[in-house]
């Protein structure tokens, strides 16, 4: 897998025709210290929400460009995946949200010293936003400012 062959003909056509934005120039922040000294934030586009948060909206035409903050120490059993896409199999992540929102794995890795610490807030967005301009220009900048204030060193971004 990892290519277009997993999708239906309709989605293959869409993905081939979609005008993907090209990042140019590509920004680059070298790691400033060893991983075991770094603070990590997890960002997932699997539309994960906690038990007391609203699901992502499945009726907005361009996709829900909102964001949810999820605490690093959340109980994995309380998380719900609310992604609207019908293009992929949701059963794995609904059985084990760690598959795209690995809170348990990251806690284990921090305890083992592979990474230094975990930021108190993780972030959840929904992929499949057909016009990402609103997400990038409106939703993301203030959240990045929070992460800078949190003294986050590294970000791990996981799609679904």
């Amino acid at each position, binding site marked *: *897998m*990892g*290519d*277009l062959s*997993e*999708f239906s003909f309709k989605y293959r056509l869409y*993905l081939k025709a979609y005008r*993907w*934005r*090209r*990042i*140019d120039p*590509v*920004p*680059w*922040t*070298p*790691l*400033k210290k*060893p*991983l075991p000294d*770094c603070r*990590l*934030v997890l*960002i997932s586009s699997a539309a994960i929400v906690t038990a007391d948060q609203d699901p992502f909206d499945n009726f907005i035409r361009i996709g829900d460009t909102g964001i949810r903050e999820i605490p690093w120490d959340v109980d994995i059993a309380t998380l719900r995946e609310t992604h609207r896409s019908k293009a*992929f*199999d*949701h*059963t*794995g*992540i609904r*059985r*084990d949200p*760690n*598959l*795209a929102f*690995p809170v*348990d*794995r990251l806690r*284990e*890795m921090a305890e083992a010293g*592979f990474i230094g610490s975990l930021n108190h807030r993780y972030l959840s967005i929904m*992929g499949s936003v057909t016009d*990402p301009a609103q*997400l*990038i220009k409106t939703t*993301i900048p203030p959240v*990045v*400012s929070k*992460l*800078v204030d949190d003294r*986050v*060193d*590294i*970000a*791990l*971004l*996981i*799609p*679904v």
Partner: protein
Amino acid sequence: MSLVAAELERRGISTVVIQLLRLVTEKVRPPRALAVPFRHGYPLDSPNDPAKQRAVLEAALSLLADKSLQPPAIVDYEVR
């Protein structure tokens, strides 16, 4: 996710993105990406398999410490 990664890098946070479609990754060009051979819905390989999930995560995070990489860096994940 690649566009979000770029915003973070511009603000001084190092990023690594796990990517499911190499074709798209090559077009969009995130700063650092681990291209995995898994189908959509399964970015960390398998549900309820901590060892496999941890292996993908370690491979992704290790890219951050690899001083030989230059942007845009796309590295293929080798399934253990």
